[in-house]
């Protein structure tokens, strides 16, 4: 069963084409990686899937629904969660509120009930608080629930981003360079965490990464991009020895 299909997706910035003829077939439960040099169009692909940019060519289907042309919040409500390459937390808000905000689409009460704190408000808010605190405790962040997000150390901010992405109860999770700025020990912890989260929340995960150790270690399939084009696709051991990939990363191989 496929969860996400990208069909001949292309996108241009001005005259510059960032992504051309991008195809992707993601099955339920997959853990797939996208790699490629800087400027290869990886983050653009995430922005196309989540609706930040509208694809200029091709179409993207999520659970059979065409999502090109939808607003980011509509796509998020269809349950695609994501994190960001450069951390984008709500810095001046508490750790708990960061996670609570991601419940916006699930909070089932109207404006009037919100203005008067009546009706479904109390029950829904309590449910959201419980759910958020549960997520925080899973990510070992409960002891900082009341702190402002900007005051957390870097590693905790990364974890909070994943917790926040999980608060929209995603079926597909997009991780944009989750290991950026981490040391080898932290990367190993992250690998365990990603696999654990995938099991626990029954997720399909698509991730962008530069750290080969992480990608080769946990991804089942890898797609390689360069200059917006797909160079190769396959399991890690095949990608590692693919001549085109080596060329893109290391330069042309003499002989």
């Amino acid at each position: 069963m496929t969860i996400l299909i990208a069909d001949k997706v292309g996108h241009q910035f001005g005259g510059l084409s960032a992504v051309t003829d991008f195809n992707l077939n993601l099955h339920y439960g997959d853990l797939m990686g996208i790699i490629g040099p800087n400027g290869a169009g990886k983050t653009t692909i995430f922005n196309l899937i989540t609706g930040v940019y509208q694809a200029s060519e091709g179409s993207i289907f999520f659970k059979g629904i065409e999502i090109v042309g939808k607003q980011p919040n509509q796509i998020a409500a269809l349950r695609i969660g994501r994190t960001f390459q450069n951390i984008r937390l709500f810095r001046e808000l508490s750790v708990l509120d960061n996670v609570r905000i991601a419940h916006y689409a699930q909070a089932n009460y109207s404006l009037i009930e919100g203005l008067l704190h009546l009706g479904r408000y109390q029950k829904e808010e309590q449910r959201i608080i419980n759910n958020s605190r549960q997520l925080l405790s899973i990510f070992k962040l409960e002891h900082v629930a009341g702190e402002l997000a900007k005051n957390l150390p870097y590693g905790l901010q990364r974890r909070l981003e994943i917790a926040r992405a999980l608060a929209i109860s995603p079926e597909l999770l997009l991780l944009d360079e989750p290991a950026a700025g981490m040391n080898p020990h932290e990367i190993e912890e992250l690998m365990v965490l990603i696999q654990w989260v995938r099991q626990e929340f029954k997720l399909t995960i698509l991730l962008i990464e530069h750290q080969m150790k992480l990608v080769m270690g946990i991804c089942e399939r890898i797609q390689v991009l360069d200059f917006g084009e797909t160079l190769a696709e396959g399991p890690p051991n095949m990608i590692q020895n693919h001549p085109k990939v080596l060329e893109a990363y290391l330069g042309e191989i003499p002989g």
Partner: protein
Amino acid sequence: MNVLLIKQWNLLLENDWLVPVLLIIGLGLSFAIPEYNLLSVYVQLILMYVGINIILAVSLNLVNGYMGEFSLAHAGFMAVGAYSSVLLTMKVLPVSDFPLLFPCAVLIGGLVAALFGMLVAIPSFKVRGDYLAIITLAFLMIVKSMIENIDFMGGPRGIPGIMRLTTLPWVFFWTVTLVWIVRNFVYSKYGRAVMAIREDEIASDLMSVNTKQVKFFAFMLSSFCAGIAGALFAHLLQFISPRIFDITKSTDILIMVYLGGIASLGGSILGATLYTVLLEILRPSTMAALLSWLPSFVFDPLQAQLINHLGTWRMVIMPLALILVMLYWPRGIMGLREFRGFIPRADKKAHSHNVHDRDVPYDNSDCR
């Protein structure tokens, strides 16, 4: 002994019935003060202006503080509320026979202002920051020149002879109700979304926040409050003209918000009160009255040298104070903090650090 006192004090502040009790006392006082002339008419007038300014500051804080936009349009929303309610009480509703029609006129004033708020919310979908500020400024100018050119609304001469219907109990009622509603809004999913938009609009959109809907609601609630303040203001001053609702009125509200602190209801209440009261104290007559207990050999030279010139210097002293506050307290007195009594109990409890009243159904020992 001291520690014990502080503990008692904190317990008192934490108490759930503190705010309701204060409200009942306040309501009683708002009826008693004019009835038994407990305070002079002048002080009563200032109390009413304090209430109206609190509404305005809270309303502007929703847009400028919580949402992080910069609105100069609030004098315009005030004008809309003032003019529509005045037209109702003077030409449509028989208010002199049925005094209870006055709150209806005020409410309708607020609703009409909310409609105009929608007009400003629409450009905010596309434009942010300085550019939206310019749009709100343009909106204010349009409202002003529209009123100036409509004859049955008095044109540039304004409308004199408005009935004085705003009383202390009504000001108290509207102030408390609107602050309560804005507080409820802030502590709901909508209010949190408003703050998320301030922090990072794209990230909040990607976290399922319907940013257009949220901006729409925030602008409408904010302009609704400003419209009600305008209606109360008109029926207190008994005279309105387009010139009253120009950019200086907007800057007055801005000063109250930034003095009190952004994204804080307590701050807005504090800022509006301080600003209104201080400006009044700096009037020569008020200052003279306040200092009249001094012996005449101190008072007379003081009056000649200082107090008589206050009228000129008042509008220098206040902005100067604001500059000092901004330099040393850039977020205002209460910036991004809140009176404990305003925060809902569930919110306070959820933010405490070591609550272990629930068992986590996950074994997360292998996930660090």
